């Protein structure tokens, strides 16, 4: 057993030397974001799981090329997104994104009236639909930035884009969303 969580750099170093247990900890730490990222690309839970799993396996085999000290997450997500894109050609059913029914309020904020809550729900549903209607490249950038909370830099790495492209694509997409959602 490992006594306390090790720093990412240390885990990566150990994994590079072939320590499967250390790599298992990295998988554990990043499987959520890897799965959700893949899901936003393929829109199918089984395909997303396969893509994330394959991504982790490929990343392990490519660790020799990973520069120690760099952040692991964006490097991993790039591999996962490539795996997910390779699966887009399959005929698997694609889900539309849906929202969970209830919202937790940040503590300290008054609970809205039931009427206001319903209104909020409708507003969010329409905004999500507007995002879904965006052209694919814009949709992916918006999803990474706002749904996965990735930084501009991480989004660029995951999607294989330049940072400037992420910036301009984000602002064009926001403009487009403002046109239909004022």
């Amino acid at each position, binding site marked *: 057993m490992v006594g306390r969580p090790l720093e990412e750099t240390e885990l990566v170093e150990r994994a590079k030397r072939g320590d*499967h247990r250390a*790599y*298992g900890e990295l*998988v*554990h730490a990043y*499987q959520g974001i*890897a*799965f*959700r990222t893949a*899901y936003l690309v393929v829109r199918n*839970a*089984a395909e*997303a*799981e*396969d893509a*994330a*799993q*394959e991504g*982790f*396996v490929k990343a*392990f*085999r490519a660790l020799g090329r990973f520069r120690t000290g760099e952040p692991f997450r964006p490097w991993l997500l790039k591999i996962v997104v490539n795996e997910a894109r390779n699966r887009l050609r399959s005929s698997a059913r694609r*889900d*539309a*994104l*849906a*929202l*969970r*029914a209830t*919202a937790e309020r940040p503590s300290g904020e008054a609970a809205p*009236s039931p*009427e*206001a809550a*319903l*209104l909020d*729900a*409708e*507003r*969010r*549903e*329409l*905004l*999500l*639909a*507007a*995002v*879904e*209607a965006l052209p694919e490249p814009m949709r992916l950038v*918006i*999803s990474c930035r*706002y*749904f*996965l*909370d990735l930084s501009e830099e991480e989004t660029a790495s995951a999607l294989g884009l330049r940072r400037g492209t992420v910036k301009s694509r984000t602002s064009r997409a*926001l403009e487009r*969303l*403002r046109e*239909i*959602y*004022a």
Partner: protein
Amino acid sequence: MPELELELREVGRLVAFPPEPDLVPAVRDRLVERPVFGRRRLLLVAFAALAVAVAAAFSVPPARTAILRFFHIGGETVERVEKLPPAERRSPVAGLAGPMSLSEARDRAGFEPLLPPRHGRIYAADGILATYLRPRVVLSEFRADISLSKKVAGPDTRIQPVTVNGHFGLWMQGAPHVITYFDSQARGHDKVVRLAGNVLVWSQGSLTLRLEGPVTRGEALRVAKTVG
């Protein structure tokens, strides 16, 4: 951070991602194997059931507050209000001239309409054109750049986002809503205010299209597919 970005984050927090799988055992098993290809696994997905639950939650008639929002689709604005302005039931082609031939309608409206293979008589005014597809079901369309239309929906009208021929659209159903239209130059004809029933609104190219009448959402979407 601007409001839209905050709202996008809020939406992101509420996206119903499928349950996160535990990949650790499978990945660790595979680290000891030689590379293999095309590993596929079946997964039971509770997601469909969840999506149904979410849809059910949203099917409650929304809000009785005054705030509300605007949604824009091409030249159409949809506004939610607490109380509808006064309006009466009028023909869906009220304010338009006709019936007339397709070429006359084209000239009068000033654009090339998108029509399904089978349609009825055509009515038109500056920047707007309408045709009956069957009794009480009317397809109207207008150029988003020269014509404007506004819908005002009260609390008992449901508004749902839909995708129509790959474009963003809205389906409005339930209590009648009030519709107002006029051409931007307001030449010659008055602003028309009337009550409308179920409506599908979407935009295609430079046109905004509206299918109105006693139809279900599914029927409306099927008809919309034949337009173009």
